[in-house]
């Protein structure tokens, strides 16, 4: 075997081993994933919390607090707020869902059904079709509400199972720099500066993006709560559980373009179910409230707090939200845009690094 053939042979062998090891690694990951799924989920939640709380801890550290103490104070405050909100909101929601379930079976819906049947009988001369439609809608509504009640009842057990998240979050915030350093230490010299630079830039941009989105969601939630509170004051409480609806609107706002519509549905739904005397006007005011919140968000809040580095075309948003939904349902839809944003920022920085660093 001549020298050239030998070199070629050794290169092919190396390549073969690399591909083999990558395939083996992916296979191992697929096999072990079901067993470590809950740990991965806890770690992801803890990482998100760490990214959100880190700026507060850094700020306290800059004011002279010991880092460990700063983390403890921040986490205690956040935990207090969460426990307080949950204890305030959850029992009310369970009551509301249960009362809505009974309402759906009682007078309001019966009246509504009668009206729909009359409408179909007069206009299409087909009362049977109307009965089918209304019974199907009722069935879906009841199923949805009973599932919701079950979901909120199981929140307690979920909370207990994720009690470990604060511990992971604490150590992630405390030792984040040590973790970064130990990851970077494994990178070969040739790619060291490139990797360190990309790692820092991506970390910074992703952090900013997540913090911006969380702040935006919080502000949209608060604005919605204020709007619905005013409607409740003026029209004699047509929208019960407006704090919870505000929270949904804030979270749904994470999905651009589609989120605001999704956020308005529960408010409209609850108003229709509680069937106040001036339902039409209440519905119009709810729509106006959500439109106003969106105008304030798009023109003032969002430009100030959300990073522009992950701007996406509306079509891209719709496509990734559909793909996210297909992969992991509602959670997938919620995380589709942030995950795409992270991938976009990472690829941008990697391309920048590969263009600017001489790796030969």
């Amino acid at each position: 075997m001549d020298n050239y053939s030998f070199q070629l042979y050794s290169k092919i062998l190396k390549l073969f081993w690399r591909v083999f090891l990558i395939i083996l690694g992916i296979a191992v990951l697929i096999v072990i994933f079901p067993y470590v799924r809950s740990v991965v989920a806890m770690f992801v939640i803890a990482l998100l919390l760490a990214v959100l709380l880190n700026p507060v801890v850094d700020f306290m550290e800059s004011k002279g607090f010991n880092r460990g103490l700063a983390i403890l104070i921040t986490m205690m405050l956040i935990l207090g707020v969460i426990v307080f909100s949950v204890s305030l909101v959850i029992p009310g929601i369970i009551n509301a869902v249960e009362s809505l379930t009974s309402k759906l079976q009682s007078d309001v819906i019966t009246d509504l059904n009668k009206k729909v049947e009359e409408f179909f009988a007069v206009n299409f001369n087909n009362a049977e079709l109307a009965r089918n439609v209304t019974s199907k809608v009722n069935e879906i509504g009841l199923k949805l509400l009973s599932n919701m009640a079950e979901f909120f009842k199981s929140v307690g057990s979920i909370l207990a199972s994720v009690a470990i998240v604060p511990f992971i979050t604490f150590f992630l915030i405390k030792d984040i720099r040590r973790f970064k350093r130990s990851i970077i230490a494994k990178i070969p010299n040739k790619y060291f500066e490139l990797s360190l630079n990309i790692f820092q830039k991506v970390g910074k941009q992703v952090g900013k993006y997540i913090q911006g989105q969380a702040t935006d969601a919080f502000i949209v939630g608060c604005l919605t709560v204020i709007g619905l509170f005013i409607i409740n004051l003026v029209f004699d409480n047509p929208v019960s559980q407006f704090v919870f609806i505000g929270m949904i609107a804030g979270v749904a706002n994470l999905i651009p373009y589609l989120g605001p519509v999704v956020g308005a549905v529960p408010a409209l739904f609850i108003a229709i179910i509680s069937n106040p005397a001036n339902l039409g006007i209440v519905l119009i005011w709810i729509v106006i409230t959500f439109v106003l919140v969106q105008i304030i968000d798009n023109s003032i809040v969002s430009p100030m707090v959300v990073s522009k580095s992950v701007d996406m075309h509306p079509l891209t948003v719709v496509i990734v939200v559909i793909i996210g939904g297909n992969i992991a349902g509602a959670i997938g839809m919620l995380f589709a845009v942030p995950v795409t944003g992270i991938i976009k920022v990472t690829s941008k920085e990697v391309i920048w690094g590969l263009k600017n660093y001489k790796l030969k």
Partner: protein
Amino acid sequence: MKNPIWAVVEFRKSRTKDDIFNVLKNVPIFSDLSKKELDEVEKIIHRREFKKGEPIFRMGDPGLGMYIIINGAVNIVEENENGESTTLAVLKDGAFFGDLALLDEAPRSASGIADDNCDILGFFRPDFMDLLYRKPKLGIKILIALSKIIGERLRRTNEQLTQLQKK
């Protein structure tokens, strides 16, 4: 009595840390720092080993931070458009280079190539900026020391320029 196994581990650990402290203490930008402050710096520096001939950074790469040689030697090399290289300096134990990159991302003006097997510490801009925010007193101390070094270099450059103009 201490367990001899752990005693050895602790001895090794403290010796490595003391080595780094001694090296850092002799670098002008860290020379005014207390032991506690050096401990904070030690948490964010990266220790790397380079083999002889291996590039530490290349001319034209975006600047990321400074390096301090614990032991070994580094050639600072300038390359022209034809690929020919000129050695500007050979730096040895305790020397530092690339400190201007602590301030901005301007491209490296020369390459740093290991002239021997090297043990090197890296102190990088993103970590420095982060330190400046979290520990402003410590960050400002480093920043002032860095400004003094850059000021001194500017003064010398001015003197040389004046001498050249006189000729």
